[in-house]
């Protein structure tokens, strides 16, 4: 489980870009690509290695409300990326 105190940032192998065909954010890494939905793109924008997970959740909840649902979404999404070894800064 992703700790609230972790300060995640993208691993060097991952590149975030805009897809030329769909206009959506795309996370590209060796042999793979992940099309991000709006929430995923918003979460990654905040993963700068400075903010902790708790602050990322607070920032998104301030925008969208529903703190509990946002918290689940953020930690679920970050866990998915962590399982693919796409994040750094997970050790609080």
């Amino acid at each position: 489980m992703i700790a609230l105190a972790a300060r995640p940032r993208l691993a060097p192998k991952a590149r975030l870009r805009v897809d030329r065909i769909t206009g959506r954010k795309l996370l590209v890494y060796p042999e793979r690509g992940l099309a991000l939905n709006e929430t995923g793109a918003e979460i990654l924008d905040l993963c700068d290695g400075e903010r902790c997970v708790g602050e990322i959740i607070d920032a998104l909840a301030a925008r969208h409300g529903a703190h509990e649902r946002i918290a689940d979404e953020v930690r679920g999404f970050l866990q998915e990326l962590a399982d693919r070894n796409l994040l750094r800064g997970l050790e609080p």
Partner: protein
Amino acid sequence: MTAERPYTLVAELTYRCPLRCAYCSNPVHLPGRKPELDTATWRRVLREAAQLGVVQVNFSGGEPLLRDDLEELVAEAHADELYTTLITSGVPLERERLAALAARGLDALQLSFQDDRAAEARRMAGVEALAQKLRVAEWARELELPLTLNAVLQRQNIARVPEIVALAERLGAERLELANTTYLGWALVNRERLLPGVDAIEGARAAAREAAERLRGRMEVLFVLPDYHTDFPRPCMGGWARTIVLVAPDGVALPCHQARAIAGLEFESVRDTPLARIWRESAGFRAFRGEAWMQEPCRSCERRQLDFGGCRCQAFALLGDAAATDPACRLSPKHAIVAAARANAGREPAGELVYRRAPTPD
């Protein structure tokens, strides 16, 4: 039907290679082969690919390091926002050149391994290369280039999965592909000498599963079963001309490495036709796109959107009919061909390997 866009371009820069691996997927024969594309044409192809929606480019071959313009092509791909991976044997390479490639925007390195033992690696590759590969992996780590190890599994190394995993961990690989040999090209020539028996496959699979669990979040471990040992065919290339486009050294655009071996299909060259037009309109690309070409049992099979009928090149190589159900599928009326090869696998002594040569024009 048309497929919207390819996501990956496989740029086969050359068929030249210092290695002679007995399982090489390059074509054995290649009638009508033209000289290699020049730098300006490859740069145009990269720009056209990016416009068409490609996001990943794999520079491969043969050995792409034998192209003097690799640095320039990496820089072009980087400028086109493509994620660039160099798929290489690591021979010949110096640390300075790898650093220069990284500085030009190379994103990742995929290094091939034949075996974790020098003598066995030499037997499979036909040349001495293991020590050099270990050096290259070390440089990749120093330069912070994400490293994938690709170990092609066959009879000789199939029991070495734990040792290969340990090597990948020691080298700091991000990803380990334990890819069983695909029996086309030179591998089909050597099939009886390479195809492992059922028990050996099961052992390797269990070891790979254990490693994948243990290393989750640190190193991705991918185990690809050989389709001779599965009940259903592999979804070759993710479906014919669906997400991947390949450009051969002489400029012919293809849906996969082996597609030119299929008699009766016509493929255009990027020398005189834009890549987008080839992708959308080429008769060769359209031949097996979608489902209209399927025969029974594929046509009414509920798995047809999972495996796309399997591999067209394998159907052609083993049955002479590229539109037939891949005989690796147990539902194929010709599955006995594959079942017989599987039943005999690993029983006879492996014998002398037939080593790869550059494709002959006959």
